[in-house]
């Protein structure tokens, strides 16, 4: 960008991510407008407002110094763990599962915040871990504890999707921290063995059912398979260029469930077709490319792990959501970043983006580490 014609304060902004984000959010708002039957104020308005609010929050996060991140990593993690325990207790008292705390002015879902939280604390852990120890059990054991507490609490809720998202973020950080490859291969092999066992002994009935229906959606077309079937119909009937804005019958006639949250991609694909879908994929690709580029250019080990971990957390959201709506993964309640209507996921994703923006700023401010 020719800086001479643009004020420095504006030119300094990370447009490489802001422009794709704005494109995605605006597109999301348009889709939500249609999903609400042409009523902008139903979902689109709050969608855009939240984006603005959380964008400001991300800008503020981006201005925080690295020192603060390092110092706050463990306390933030501790507070989040406490909140998770609190949620569990309240849920236990109230009877039934509860995932959120009512703070009066908003409902807080600690497990959502734990997704960036786990990345932050593990990035800190590996940055303080002596380099020589990375190949020993001392690199694994504390990390396993740090992951085990929140993942266990979330799975207890039970919220399998969020539990997997937290674990995925943690494993990515451990992988990038340079832990021996054979551990991951070994864990992968063990996972292959354990998965069937977990399926039969650990999963709740409704979770097991979801997996079974995923494998054969037509077996239960009006029950659990309904979501997947209707979502595939919406995407498939859209064709190459879609039915046109506002003409999606699947969403407008309520055949597609959760058309504005988890299945917003299907709503979009019905009206915008495959081209709309490719547009979304390309925008996400731009965002992830930016995230990983920031991570590669980061000045030190902490910020590198932090940026890469945050990027992969967002990626996990997108990946699981899109696989779910296209019938490649079981139905888990994970929304599509920046397109689904919902405050919690918007906040989480904007925290991730803010953190990556902060890393980008650190690398611009400080000289690149020689190592």
């Amino acid at each position, binding site marked *: 960008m020719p800086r001479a014609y643009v004020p420095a304060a504006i030119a300094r902004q990370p447009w490489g991510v802001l422009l794709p984000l704005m494109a995605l959010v605006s597109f999301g708002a348009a889709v939500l407008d249609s999903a609400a039957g042409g009523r902008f104020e139903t979902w689109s308005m709050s969608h855009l407002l939240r984006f603005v609010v959380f964008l400001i929050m991300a800008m503020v996060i981006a201005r925080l110094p690295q020192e603060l991140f390092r110092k706050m990593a463990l306390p933030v993690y501790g507070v989040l763990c406490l909140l998770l325990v609190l949620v569990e207790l309240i849920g236990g008292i109230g009877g039934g599962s509860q995932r959120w705390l009512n703070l009066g002015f908003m409902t807080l879902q600690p497990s959502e915040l734990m997704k960036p939280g786990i990345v932050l604390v593990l990035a800190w852990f590996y940055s303080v871990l002596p380099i020589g120890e990375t*190949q020993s059990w001392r690199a694994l054991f504390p990390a396993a504890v740090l992951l085990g507490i929140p993942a266990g609490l979330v799975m207890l809720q039970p919220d399998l999707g969020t539990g997997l998202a937290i674990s995925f973020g943690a494993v990515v950080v451990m992988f990038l921290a*340079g832990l021996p490859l054979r551990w991951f291969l070994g864990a992968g092999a063990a996972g292959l063995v354990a998965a069937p066992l977990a399926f039969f002994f650990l999963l709740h009935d409704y979770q097991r059912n979801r997996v079974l229906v995923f494998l054969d959606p037509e077996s239960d077309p009006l029950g659990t398979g309904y979501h997947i079937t209707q979502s595939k119909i919406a995407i*498939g009937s859209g064709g190459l260029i879609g039915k046109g804005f506002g003409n999606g*019958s*699947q969403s407008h006639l309520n055949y597609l469930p959760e058309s504005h949250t988890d299945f917003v991609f299907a709503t979009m694909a019905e009206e915008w077709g495959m081209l709309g879908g490719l547009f979304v994929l390309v925008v996400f*690709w731009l965002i992830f490319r930016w995230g*990983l580029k920031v991570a590669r250019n980061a000045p030190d080990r902490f910020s590198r792990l932090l940026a890469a971990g945050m990027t992969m957390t967002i990626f996990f959201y997108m990946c699981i959501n899109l696989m779910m709506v296209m019938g490649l993964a079981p139905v888990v309640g994970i929304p599509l970043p920046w397109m689904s209507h919902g405050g919690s996921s918007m906040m989480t994703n904007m925290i991730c983006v803010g953190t990556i923006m902060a890393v980008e700023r650190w690398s611009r401010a400080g000289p690149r580490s020689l190592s």
Partner: protein
Amino acid sequence: MRQKLPVTSAILTNRFERRTFVLGALQGGVGLLLAARLGYLAVAQNEKYQAASESNRVNLTLIPPRRGWVLDRFGNALAANRADFRVDLIPDRVDDPDKTMATLAGLLSLPPDKVRDIRDKLDKARGFQPVEVASSLDWDKFAAVSVRLPELPGVIPQRGYSRYYPAGASVGHLVGYVGAASAEDYEKERNPLLITPGFKIGKDGLEKHFEARLRGVPGARRVEATASGRIVRDLGTREDVPGKPIALTINAGLQDYAARRIGLESGSVVVMDCETGDILAMASMPSFDPNSFSDGIGRVEWKMLSEDDHVPLRNKVLRGLYPPGSTVKPMVALSFLEAGLDPNASVGCAGGLRVGNRVFHCWNRRGHGSVDMAKGIYQSCDVYFYHFAQQIGMDKIAAMARRLGLGQEFPMPYPGQSYGTVPDPAWKLRKYKKEWAVYDTVNATIGQGYMLVNPLQQAVMASRIASGRQVMPKLLLDRNAPPVKSMGFSQEHLDYIHAAMSEVVNGRGTAGKARIPVDNVLLAGKTGTAQVVGLNIANGKSGAWKYRDHGHFICFAPFDKPKYACAVVIEHGGGSGAAYPIARDVMTYIFAPDKAMAVLEEFEKQWGGNVQQRMAARYNSFAAKYGESAPKPVPDDEDLTEQVEEGRKPAEEPATAQTDAAAPPPEPEQPAPAVAAPPPPAPPATAPAGGQ
């Protein structure tokens, strides 16, 4: 070995970059996978999913077709359709049946017994099988339900057509009735039309037999509907194709007259065109009102019909079996003539005939004196027939009976006719493993013993004797039917029998009161009184209704140029005196409707109104007595069919062989020895009262 080397920051950075690249590649791979999947769904399988989306979006509502009309020979409607407003319930969609029914009962002002009926049906109904709440609603009530729809899920108000039988009960057994398809019907046909609210299928009679022809092709309304079934907009409507009409040989006026004229009795009247076989009237009374049956049968109505000893649910024309009594005598006489007997051959009747060591009585114990064939018929002398039947033999008589239609099943569009028995030696040996005895012949010649016939067969017999043609009963109008061929009887013989039968009515016979009040038209007939139980139980004239004699009369007119034949059977009427006045008035109606109607209206005043009024009064007294607490719940469709069948079982044939002579019950009119006017019999006006 890398593990042995001290790990440095540089190595870790290097490793980070390589692994970041791996993750990037992973992202790219996933991205490509997603893009490929997207292309597969949206492009490769586009057609399949587009079809699925369309079938989601577009909701096809069937419009029940208008049913074909049933017409009489002049084009008058026996069954028609009329536009009405109706309200149905879809059991699966009703959230709170009690609350919904309470609201509907208020809006439609339903009586409590009707509400109980609907609740019963609602509990029994499966899935989407609609339950009718009310039909023939006026606009105000219909509108009242329509505006409350949002709080009444599962309630479907619609305008459509309902079946209407202008003559009501008079055509109940003739036409049958319609009703909502049962689960069984749906299992059989799997047609979504069957579970469309407001659609009715034929349940009985012609409505059932000609279902395919009457049904028509449903119309369809295409609408865009949400997943929860709310209609967003109309996409188009295809009109229904009404079913084809059926034209019957029936004369609607005559049918109605005949049914009404039966009055308080339990009986049947069949009128045929004896040249063509066209059935002009075929009434069985008492009957049910097909209009109210088609709306579903209420508990009070069911109680009323099922507890009636006059079995209103049995079509007595086809399923009633009776010993024909003396009405077989013209047939027996014809067999004598055809066998070569001289009609002038006489026998002396002294009130009985000794056969072997037993005396067979004539109905007239005082005797008829010298009796030839004509006198044997018009005085109904039993001894004449006892004597010559032994001479001619049972085989000839039985052959003639079958030739004239007795014991025969006719191709009529009704299931399960009872065709009775014409006994002969071979039959008895087959059935009871016993030799034919003389008393069997004696019994058979006076229409008692094993002989059982239905009223239609009697009408056919009368027609064949009248015209000498081999007429078959026809119910479907065919104006181009070829002329019916002759039976091959000698016209001389027929004329002889006709003259004797005319004498029954117009001369010295047993039914002088049956003369019809029309100039130049003479009626010829034959009375019959059939015993139900032995004289040791009851005398057949009075006492318990079910022990009284059956009354028969067969006739035709005009006597010299036969055109119309008629058979009347009055169950337990106490003798032929209950039957021939009805036949007389019905035949009068054909030639002089005004005169006949005047007589009928006089009777109906005494009977307490016409059929509808009497049924309504009876219903009200039942409703007042039992109300919604009618103990017997309304049977569901399958049960109903079974119970109706049950009600229709004909009188059982004798299970054991009869070993005695039937004592002939006396004919009602005292025989008039001279041409003088017959002495006044019991006035016809009081005769029907015996039935109650």
